[in-house]
């Protein structure tokens, strides 16, 4: 039920933010379109922990804030490599293990790695990720450990209690 409420709330906020015209007719049409979207989503059986992860908004948003700082820090060496006179890069494949269990946590972790300039997730198999890195010396498995832990906490933290409840 919470998933439905979260989905309706987010759809309503999106509509109000994008429209900007608040006449009764348009508001009624907005209500109808939100209703159709929710009915279709529930018929597709996507209104669950993955399709409507708004219950974990605060951990995910705080993770996102941390990730933005990391992305801007990681931009700098790649920018230098792009404009330096000789190509000073050391590309390599790295294998990293993750502690994330759910698909949502794995997706967040793999997409965070891809978003960070200098590393791209090439393949995910079980709990192992194949990563292509622009600088082999920066991409040791330890360097992904904090991101792994943080994305695990953002998406999977307290999951056992949620499953038990």
């Amino acid at each position, binding site marked *: 039920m919470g998933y439905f409420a979260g989905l309706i709330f987010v759809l309503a906020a*999106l509509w109000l*933010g*994008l429209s*900007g015209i608040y006449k009764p007719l348009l508001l009624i049409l907005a209500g109808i379109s939100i209703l159709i979207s929710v009915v279709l989503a529930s018929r597709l059986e996507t209104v669950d922990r993955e399709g409507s992860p708004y219950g974990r908004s605060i951990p995910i948003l705080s993770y996102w804030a941390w990730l*933005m700082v990391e*992305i*801007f820090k990681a*931009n700098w060496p*790649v*920018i230098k*490599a*792009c*404009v330096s006179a000789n*190509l000073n*890069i*050391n*590309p*390599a*494949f790295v294998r990293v293990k993750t502690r994330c269990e759910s698909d949502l946590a794995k997706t967040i972790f*793999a*997409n*965070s790695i*891809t*978003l*960070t*300039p*200098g*590393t*791209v*997730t*090439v*393949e995910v198999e079980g709990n192992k990720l*194949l990563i*292509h890195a*622009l600088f*082999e010396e920066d991409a040791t498995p330890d360097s992904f450990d904090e991101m792994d832990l943080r994305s695990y906490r953002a998406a999977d933290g307290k999951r056992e209690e949620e499953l038990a409840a």
Partner: protein
Amino acid sequence: MSELLDILMFLKPWVGGILCVIGALLALIGSIGVLRFPDFFTRLHAASITDTSAVTLSLLGMAILAPNWLVVFKLAAIWLFIFLTSPTGSHALANAAHTAGLQPVLGRDLRRPDNREEEA
């Protein structure tokens, strides 16, 4: 208080414009990287500069220049969707290349892999 507001209003177009220009420069650097890097996988890294910092700074500059909050909301929505979709696209490209058997350039001396099978 109103003086402070005046100063902020005077600075607004300058700050927004400078942020937009920095974003455009970063996009240019990303494009230069795409042209200069040796193979497919390394070029993906150069493109990710354009995907992340260039987009963020340009959209931030546009949000500062925006005439009302509705525009800011739309720019924020664009930013969110770019940050959700661009890593998915990069991953799809990298995974497709890896699955198809494209050998990457590896190591500091940038050894050229033997890709003749694909070229033939």
